[in-house]
């Protein structure tokens, strides 16, 4: 479930990034979500073929983890944006 939620977040962010022409450096958020999506894709597919069982874990726990992951990605992007703005304003004043 967390894989599906992160993949959806990656798609939505990419669409926004494309439409807003990378305003607010949305591409960084895209890369964060896509990186995790690609890694989980490999993890899920390999685990499915090697260990068997379900391809996607559809539980409340997995859904909560998905939400936490998406929010954390958003939080990290916010911090990066904040730091970059501080750096830019600092360079401008110099």
């Amino acid at each position, binding site marked *: 479930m*967390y894989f599906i939620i*992160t993949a959806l977040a990656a798609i939505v962010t990419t669409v926004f990034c494309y439409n807003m022409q*990378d*305003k607010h*450096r949305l*591409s*960084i958020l895209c*890369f*964060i*979500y*896509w*990186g*995790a999506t*690609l*890694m*989980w*894709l*490999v*993890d899920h597919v*390999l*685990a499915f073929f*090697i260990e068997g069982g379900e391809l996607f874990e559809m539980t409340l726990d997995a859904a909560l*983890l998905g939400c*936490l*992951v998406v929010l*954390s*990605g958003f939080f*990290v992007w916010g911090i990066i944006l904040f730091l970059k703005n501080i750096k*830019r304003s600092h*360079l*401008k004043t*110099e």
Partner: protein
Amino acid sequence: MACVVVPMVEAIIVTIAKKIVQRKERKALGNSSSTETINTPMKEERQTLQMGLSWSRKLSWLNNLLWGGVFLLALEHIWHGEIILWPPFLTAMKNPADIQPMLEEMALFGTSMAIFVTVVWVIMIYIAEHKLKYNCTKIYLDD
């Protein structure tokens, strides 16, 4: 268990490589003015149209993909109790019997993840460069 370690090692290597390439590119540009260090998305876009995709920019894409993936995967591992925030950091390290399966998982899952992300990045660069060439030709023909 600890598959996230392999992409993390790759991310560290890419970060170092990016810093070195960035320094070399700045030197090659002659560090024309101090304002060059202020990289706004608009400025980056203009520079890309003039000179093509720089290696530092290409590497920053891979860097963001890897670090983003590593961070969110580490969160998932913490959630599942496979990573702890105090030594030895990996739960599997507590039990000697778990070390062998952990290393096998790192070799199979971790390496596959790192290779897959890198392959996707190579495809991404190929598409971006072709798109850039197409856009440049279009601008040239429009003028």
